[in-house]
């Protein structure tokens, strides 16, 4: 089947029910997207499908109906997305393993709701676990990214 990931189309030969997560990681070698729980409890595997955050451990390859964006496609070290900029400015990451998912969740959220309330930030970001406890900085970074995006 064909998958478009970060603007590039790939032909992959996988079972329909292989989760996109493992297509990305093991078939395409795109490893920024992380495996954490396999049951949509942690959010580490979050990518975008047509701009909407989805948990790639739940999205079977055969159910991919749109363009996929991973953390590598959101922005790069030399061309950062506003959310990544905020994450770097506020030094959110500790172990960092959850952060690709956190950033993808935040980017999709702010795309749909550019000027969220604090309560909405809490609701949008509570599906993503961080075991290290970087939540205070995640909160601040989402607020900061929201202001950045508004100014942009």
């Amino acid at each position, binding site marked *: 089947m064909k998958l478009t990931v970060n603007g590039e189309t790939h032909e992959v030969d996988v079972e329909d029910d292989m989760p996109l997560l493992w297509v990305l990681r093991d078939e395409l070698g795109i490893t920024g997207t992380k495996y954490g729980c*396999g*049951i*949509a*409890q942690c959010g580490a595997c*979050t990518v975008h499908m047509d701009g*909407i*955050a*989805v*948990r790639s451990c*739940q*999205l*079977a390859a055969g*159910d991919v*109906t749109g363009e996929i964006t991973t953390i590598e496609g959101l922005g790069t070290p030399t061309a950062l997305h506003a959310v990544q900029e905020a994450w770097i400015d506020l030094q959110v990451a500790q172990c960092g393993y959850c952060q690709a998912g956190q950033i993808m*969740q935040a980017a*999709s*959220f702010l795309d*749909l*709701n550019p000027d*969220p309330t604090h309560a*909405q930030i*809490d*609701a*949008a*970001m*509570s*599906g993503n676990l961080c075991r290290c406890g970087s939540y205070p900085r995640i909160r601040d970074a989402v607020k900061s990214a929201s202001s950045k995006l508004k100014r942009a």
Partner: protein
Amino acid sequence: MRALILALILAAPVAAQDIPSRDDGLAAWDEIFAVTSHPRCTNCHVGDAGVPMWNGLIYGSDTVHGMHVQAGESRVGAETMACRTCHISAQSDNATPHAPPMIDDAWRLPPTELAWLGKTSDKVCAQLRNPDTNDGFAMDELATHLETSLFVAWGFAPGAGRDEPPGTLDDMVVALKLWAAAGTPCAANP
């Protein structure tokens, strides 16, 4: 007795003398309410707050959906985290316990006027028989809805050990038709 009534209903046109009695209608309503008040249904048929529930499975009762999920005014989580972020629109066997269930439709909450959680039988009865408060369904449309909705179908076969409402979807449709034929009686008012 019920089989006889069913036979009568199914053998439309319904003659005046074939109209089920109010008692039969109320009995049918009780069957319907046993379903609509079941956590499998009330977990999503929630009110304005847009907070779905996780009653059942291992989560006990009176348990809100984890992760602080807020479906919002949009009822699809557009303001915060879309329902479909986890509840992917896909055909799925939903066999993995504690993974988000999926259907081949956009996962969402029903409209607020169809809130059932914590509502009495009479309240839900009054709500469902009135197209103004039941999302605009006439009774025959409501029956069709039951038969075709992927949500309803999933609700009766949720998989992964999740609790199922009493009876079958067919029973539910039959009860609805009977209740409709009886003039959608509610115990509190005629």
